[in-house]
């Protein structure tokens, strides 16, 4: 079942922009590993070739936690295209992740 696009011009942005993500994780915790796998899957499926992402292990850079206002982890920040959006969790709720990305979801 197809859903209507969430934004009328999301089709356009889909084709034009490159998605930039930062994923904050904490070492090799179960949530962290799940999050990495889920992100990779989603990107490969919906944004093939149009994405860049960086994985940051907060344990390695504890000061970043204060600067980025990190509380709940894992945290995914979409830096581009604007607006910047954040989502927490292991990204297993694909529909919500797509909503955040501005991609209409398919069940």
């Amino acid at each position, binding site marked *: 079942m197809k859903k209507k696009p969430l934004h009328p011009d999301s089709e356009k942005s889909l084709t034009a922009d490159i998605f930039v993500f930062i994923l*904050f994780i*904490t070492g090799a*915790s179960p*949530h962290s590993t*799940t*999050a990495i796998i*889920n992100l990779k899957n989603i990107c490969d499926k919906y944004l093939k070739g149009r994405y860049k992402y960086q994985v940051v292990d*907060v*344990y390695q850079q*504890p*000061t970043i*936690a*204060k600067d980025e*206002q*990190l*509380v*709940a*982890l*894992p*945290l*995914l920040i979409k830096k581009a295209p604007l607006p910047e*959006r*954040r*989502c*927490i*969790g*292991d*990204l*297993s*709720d694909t529909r*919500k*992740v797509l*909503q*955040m990305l501005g991609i209409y979801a398919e069940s």
Partner: protein
Amino acid sequence: MNLKKNTKTTGELLRKTPSGIQGLDEITEGGLPLGRPTLVCGAAGAGKTLFGVGFIVHGAMDYNEPGVIISFEERAEELETNVASLGFDLKKLQKEKKIFIDHVHVQRNEIEETGEYDLDGLFIRLQHAIDTVGAKRVMLDTIENLFGGLTNDGILRAELRRLFNWLKQIGATTIITAEKGDGTLTRQGLEEYVSDCVILLDHRVENQISTRRLRVVKYRGSIHGTNEYPFLIDENGISVLPVTSLRLENKVSTQRVSSGIPELDEMLGGKGFYKGSSILVSGTAGTGKTSIVATTVNAACNRNERCLFFAFEESPQQIIRNMRSIGLDLQKHVDAGLLVFSATRPTVYGLEMHLVNMHKKIQEYNPKLVIVDPISNLLTTGILGDVKLFLMRLLDYLQSKGITGMFTALNLNSVITEKSDEGVSSLVDAWITVKDIETNGERNKGLYIMKSRGMKHSNRIREFVITDEGLTLVDVFIGPEGVLTGSARESQELLNETGSELRGYALSRNNKAIDRKRKVLESKIAALNEEFDSVRDDLNRVYIEEDLKKDVLEKARKKLIQKRKDNGKNK
């Protein structure tokens, strides 16, 4: 078995860390549980954040225990500004690496939840903060705010449990603040996780005036005061005044100070009050309570002692004017800087603030004598019990500083009962009461000393007279007609004078009579003497006559004999 266990555990008592919050350590017998979390809950504006910041700041400054403040509400700058008014310089402490402040901000609309997560971010930040300053103390200011930002209750609760356990493990003494819920201590039931020590702050409004109170709800493994203790927030942060646990260890003085009324001093064993004692002057309306204290103030100022006058009824000018009418020039002392008035309406603020104000003024001015006129007016700001506690705290403070305190209180009923005067009579060292004595269509004042600890004092009722030159005490007349005062006393005195006059007259009359009697007797004695003399003369005359006769007869006989002889010769 149980007993054995108990005696065994006394050896390893719960270790505590001083909170640095004045008075709290006394209630909790040493402070907050070391290395354990303490929950501080209360409604909005109860002073939770202040409590926590006070704990952290005092730890950093006084006990060499650096601290971390994780604020979920205010940003660091806001927090700095808010507590700056209380004398906490967070900026400086942060620079000195004694305190680390981190503002944790969770905005719900910015965050989407897409599955399982944990609060490792918070853990890492906390760990980092603790490592940075080597913190021994941690404050989590309203961690419940997380519930507003994150929706998954199940995860949050599990994570909070993990957080508190972790804090316990690393041995950080933690304060967790939480908003009071409806019927529960906290909105999110945090007391479930933090069960070592729970402190409840309360902010109650009675008669439109608010009073802050603190209660230790729970303190696992330790005895603690269970009462509600009033506390106040002033420049030094929170200070709890644990009335019932204050130790009675104040130094006392044997020095005496004059009350300014010589007759009253005389009633008090001749020397006046003890220095540093507390004196209650009570009486019905218009009995001259203020005049008594003003006289004492005047006397103290004349001795070059500083006085502080808290007036709750009259303005300073009014008091000065009124006292001039009894010959007291208080203005002189005000000008000389020996007397300071602090006049406020009792309803201006709650009892707490009054106490704060008084503490401040006393500290600033360092007086020898403090007057509160009258304490009964404070009743408008609180219930009786509160006023009593207030006075107890004030008295304690004065005593600890060796300041003599004098309080006036209005008696509403003319009958003096044991339970009166805001129940402070048991607190004060000396209690003077002025009572109306109503007789013969006159109202006069009788002064009693109800009590005066540690000195001989008169049991007499003295009539209290206010003259243009000041106050004096006159002996009342106690006679067959009862206690006489005022003009009745004067007339009785007059009557006495007449009586003595009459008695004197009677005496002199008697003396005269005796004199006369003596004179009569004396004259009688003289007459009898005369008579005796005449009788004796009479008797003597007979003798002489007899002698004379005898003589003459003898002569005649001799002549006769001679004649006879001559005749014979011639023959």
